């Protein structure tokens, strides 16, 4: 709620005017039965045609005024609701961008996407409906009742019974069907799952000749879905007939009571008609009100979820001031660093210490899940270490401003991500001022020259969303080129040569060696051949540093490393 109000604040006038005009319309609607009463009692009663015309004209006028005021109301409601949603969306997106990695890990990417799109849209609809209906519907329901009381207290007593009864039925049916709807959703999810699995496993399913069984499973799931749908359908189908019966029984009661009153001379025929008309107005508004409550419920749940994201403060703070680069001989230094992922009791990295000299090449190797990527993620401060200290060029990493860190370090991530836009635009992301020449050098170093030139427009070739129009190896080479364009003193390859075949991998490494002078390079890999020639190899095993040194050194002394080598190379090759 807090957030809704905060963003609705800019639309104060609109959010007041919308319900105001809605109420005006409702008042006008409540007057209509009174006019009809007058037509019957005076116009017809005294055979006064002029009076009938006059009152008829009033009815037209009421209709027209009603239209104008409700159109005005709809406009203001829409403006306020959409304005609120739009501003909330901008704020949330900006907020999300301030999150650190561990924040995002904690919330989850898909949850963030849902918050930004679906949830805010629901809130927007909710605000819109509340502005339009929240006052109007109850106003008409209770207004009708009050009007009935002003006509005749005795007959109006029927209203006091019928309104709660209708409420009970409408909401009873609504609440009875909600849990079944949830079950239906689950059942649909199951069907989605079966279909998706069937497609992703198409080869395995056919290899094992299980098509028939799969189809049977699917049939079973759809059959249970139909059962649920029929059940809830039968309940929902009750709503209209039951409310209709109640309402009309009430009309019978009003007529019967009213007849007695008319006989006694306390009421006119026209007044009885008015009572009947008021009764009919209630039902429509009650149904609208029940729909409104559903919408409000949904919107409230969504807004709670959105608020939870807003309430989460980014956990990582950067100093405004830039740090002074010390004249240290080490580019990167880890001192007794340990790291735990959110909520995890087991450390992903445990007590790791090493120092990387300026201009050296550091290889990091180890099994999947041994902590290589985690270690690398601490260098650009994607995460803060839980214990120990990480320093860059002699200063604690936490002393650097955000901009400074970005300029100091270039990363080629494991997953090759390119954005929608031209190759050139993508390469410029990290360094907007790079010249075309610099771009071309980076492309050729990254072994991407051949395929870039073969594309229409060369570096102006447009990359589609998720880089769909490039192969895995091509994307990877472009992400490497993108990092090279940044020209940062520290360059990190996070297992980012895996999509390249061995020959390209080898050519790339020798090209890097030629062009990068003075750059400190980290290479994470599972391939011994990729890290074999590094100045320093860090061997990771289960989060710990199992060994650090050169290839020959480690091959002699580190059992872990030797084992990895022998699993990939023959003894002779490894010892080369």
């Amino acid at each position, binding site marked *: 709620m807090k957030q809704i109000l905060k963003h609705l604040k800019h639309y104060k006038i609109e959010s007041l005017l919308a319900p105001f005009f809605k109420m005006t319309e409702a008042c006008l609607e409540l007057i209509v039965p009174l006019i009809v009463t007058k037509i019957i009692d005076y116009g*017809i009663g005294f055979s006064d045609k002029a009076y009938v015309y006059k009152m008829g004209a009033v009815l037209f006028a009421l209709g027209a005024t*009603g239209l104008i005021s409700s159109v005005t109301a709809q406009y203001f409601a*829409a403006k306020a609701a959409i304005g609120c949603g739009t501003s909330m969306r901008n704020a949330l997106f900006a907020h999300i961008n301030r999150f650190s990695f561990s924040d995002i890990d904690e919330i989850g990417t898909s949850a963030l996407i849902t918050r930004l799109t679906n949830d805010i849209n629901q809130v927007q609809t909710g605000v819109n409906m509340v502005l339009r209906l929240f006052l109007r519907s109850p106003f008409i329901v209770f207004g009708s009742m009050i009007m009935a009381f002003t006509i005749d207290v005795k007959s109006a007593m029927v209203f006091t019974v019928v309104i709660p009864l209708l409420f009970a039925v409408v909401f009873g049916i609504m609440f009875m069907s909600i849990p079944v709807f949830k079950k239906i959703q689950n059942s649909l999810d199951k069907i989605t799952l079966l279909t998706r699995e069937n497609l992703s496993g198409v080869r395995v399913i056919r290899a094992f000749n299980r098509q028939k069984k799969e189809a049977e499973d699917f049939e079973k799931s759809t059959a249970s879905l139909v059962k649920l749908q029929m059940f809830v359908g039968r309940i929902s189908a009750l709503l209209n007939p039951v409310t209709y019966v109640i309402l009309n029984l009430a009309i019978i009661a009003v007529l019967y009571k009213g007849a007695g009153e008319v006989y006694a001379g306390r009421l006119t025929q026209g007044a009885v008609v008015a009572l009947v008309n008021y009764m009919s107005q209630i039902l429509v508004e009650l149904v609208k009100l029940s729909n409104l409550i559903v919408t409000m419920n949904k919107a409230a749940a969504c807004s709670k979820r959105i608020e939870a994201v807003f309430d989460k403060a980014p956990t990582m703070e950067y100093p405004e001031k830039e740090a002074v680069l010390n004249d240290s001989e080490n580019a990167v230094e880890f001192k007794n660093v340990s790291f735990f992922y959110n909520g995890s009791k087991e450390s992903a990295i445990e007590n790791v210490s090493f120092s990387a000299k300026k201009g050296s090449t550091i290889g990091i190797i180890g099994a999947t899940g041994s902590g290589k990527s985690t270690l690398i993620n601490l260098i650009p401060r994607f995460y803060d270490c839980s214990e120990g200290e990480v320093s860059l060029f002699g200063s604690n990493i936490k002393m650097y401003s955000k901009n400074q860190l970005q300029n100091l370090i270039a990363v080629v991530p494991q997953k090759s991500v390119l954005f929608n836009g031209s190759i050139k635009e993508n390469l410029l992301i990290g360094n907007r001022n790079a010249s075309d020449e610099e771009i071309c050098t980076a492309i050729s170093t990254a072994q991407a020259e051949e395929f870039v030139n073969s594309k229409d427009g060369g570096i102006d070739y447009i990359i589609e*969303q998720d880089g769909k129009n490039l192969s895995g190896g091509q994307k990877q080479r472009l992400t490497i080129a993108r990092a090279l364009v940044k020209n940062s003193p520290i360059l990190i390859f996070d297992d980012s040569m895996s999509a390249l075949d061995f020959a390209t991998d080898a050519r790339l490494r020798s090209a890097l060696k030629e062009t990068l002078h003075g750059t400190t390079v980290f290479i994470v890999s599972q391939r011994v051949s990729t890290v074999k020639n590094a100045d320093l190899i860090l061997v990771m095993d289960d989060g710990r540093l199992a060994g650090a040194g050169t290839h020959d050194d480690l091959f002699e002394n580190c059992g872990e490393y030797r084992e990895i080598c022998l699993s*990939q190379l023959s003894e002779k090759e490894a010892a080369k």
Partner: protein
Amino acid sequence: MKNSSALKRVLLYIKRYRLPVALSLIFAAASVGFMLYAPKIMGKAVDAIIGKGNVDFDAMTKHLIFFGVMIGAYALTQWLMNVCNNFVTYRVVKDVRTTAFNKLQRLDVAYADSHAHGDIVSRIVNDTDQFSDGLLIGFTQFFTSILTILGTIGFMLTINVKVTIAVVCVTPLSLFVASFIAKKTYDMFKRQSQTRGEMTSLVNEMAGNQKTVKAFGYEETAVNRFKEINSSFGKYSLKATFFSSLVNPSTRFVNSMVYACVAIFGGIAVINGSAVGAGITVGQLVCMLTYATQYTKPFNEISGVITELQSALACASRVFELIDTEEQVSDSSLPDLENADGRVQIQNVDFSYDKNKELIKNLNLNVEKSKRVAIVGPTGCGKSTIINLLMRFYDVDSGCIKVSGNDIKDITRKSLRQNYGMVLQETWLKTGTVKENIAYGKPDATDEEIIAAAKLTHAHSFIKRLPNGYDTVIGEEKGNLSQGQKQLLCITRVMLSLPPMLILDEATSSIDTKTEQRIQKTFSKMMEGRTSFIVAHRLSTIKEADIILVMKDGKIIETGTHSQLLAKNGFYTELYNSQFSK
């Protein structure tokens, strides 16, 4: 597919439920009749209430009781109609959905390979759902709306012709307003959903790729891009919301016009009637007013139903498109492959996925039984394609593949595939228990057999340690198992049936080398006495093969054993050395 032909198809599916459909129509007609007749009786009751000391209680009570019966009858018939409609709709959707899914089982693997899975899933799940909604609303409302309109006019005519004519004259206004709004709104909604699509993909791109965004300081650009899209989204959705919210007020307006007309002309008719004795009573006026309030509603419903039906049919045609896709050639009349001995011959085979791009050209290979064949080469050279052809996931363009001397096109796919055990790079497991997954190819396997197979593949020890052992459920994300464990399960799955021929397609490339070594031992055991095809890019894993095929650009350019190939000092040597080069 045009909407009209989609409609015809839907009607074919509905035809199976002739009886409930007929019942639904009968109930609908009856309920409209009761609904329209009720106000007339109420009018008579009002006429019995004239004034002080002048109320005909007997007549009124009689009318009120009759009124009550009409109400009850309406409620009952309406409920029954709804139940019939639900019955038909949900069953038709189930039929369509099941047909589509069954179809999927008979389509070529190429279909799954070349179509976005999300799109197929959305056809089978969302489109059918949408289609069911549209169908249901169409059913319930289309017929009753038309009946209501005609019925109302008919009933009003029995009361007073002039007033009825006045009402009918206002009708075009309602239709005009409804269609104007619908047109305006449709356009805006389309643009709104377009921008929403753009926005979702931007958020997807940014939130999903935070690492890149953060590493390159892309946040600010991202926020600006977002703001831009968001503001045009706001613009469109304001218009869409506003225009669509005009429907109710406009309807109410037209309604009140009709109402006013009835009040004026009806009132005058009552006055004239009392003078000459040929007009209407007050009760009939009240009855007319009730009709007037009911009269405009069906018009809106019809226009709503038409748009709803249109989108439902559009969805239906997407599903039908899937159902109509050409199936793989039926093989039910072909004999099964019996007693395969493991001999495989590939003769003069040409094949390519894209007929404009040559891939495999004149491929020949003769594999004796129990031989180990390794296939190596750079990415995209056609290694996995050979597997696709061997398993007959794809058919060769020309030439033939023979197993035990039988052309695989002359035997059933089922019997061919039964003779292969396949382990792929992607470890596909089904949502279900570990046991179900291992017994996937042999559902009648006993627990003892399953455990024995798991012991052979060294999977037993980790399965034992899972929370519920062999009954542990592997969820959709399969996050509770590591890549290596999943692969072990896939291998155990093959181990259980252990057919005479094996295919290992990059089976260990996503696993770290230490785990790989363990799995490799299992493989060696499995391969004993079996013809096997091994695709790998880590050359260290295939040194022991009886024959190594070196592929490049769809052709086999070198063959031989590891040492023979190294001695040749050709492409293989180059590949091999690049792994270990300095």
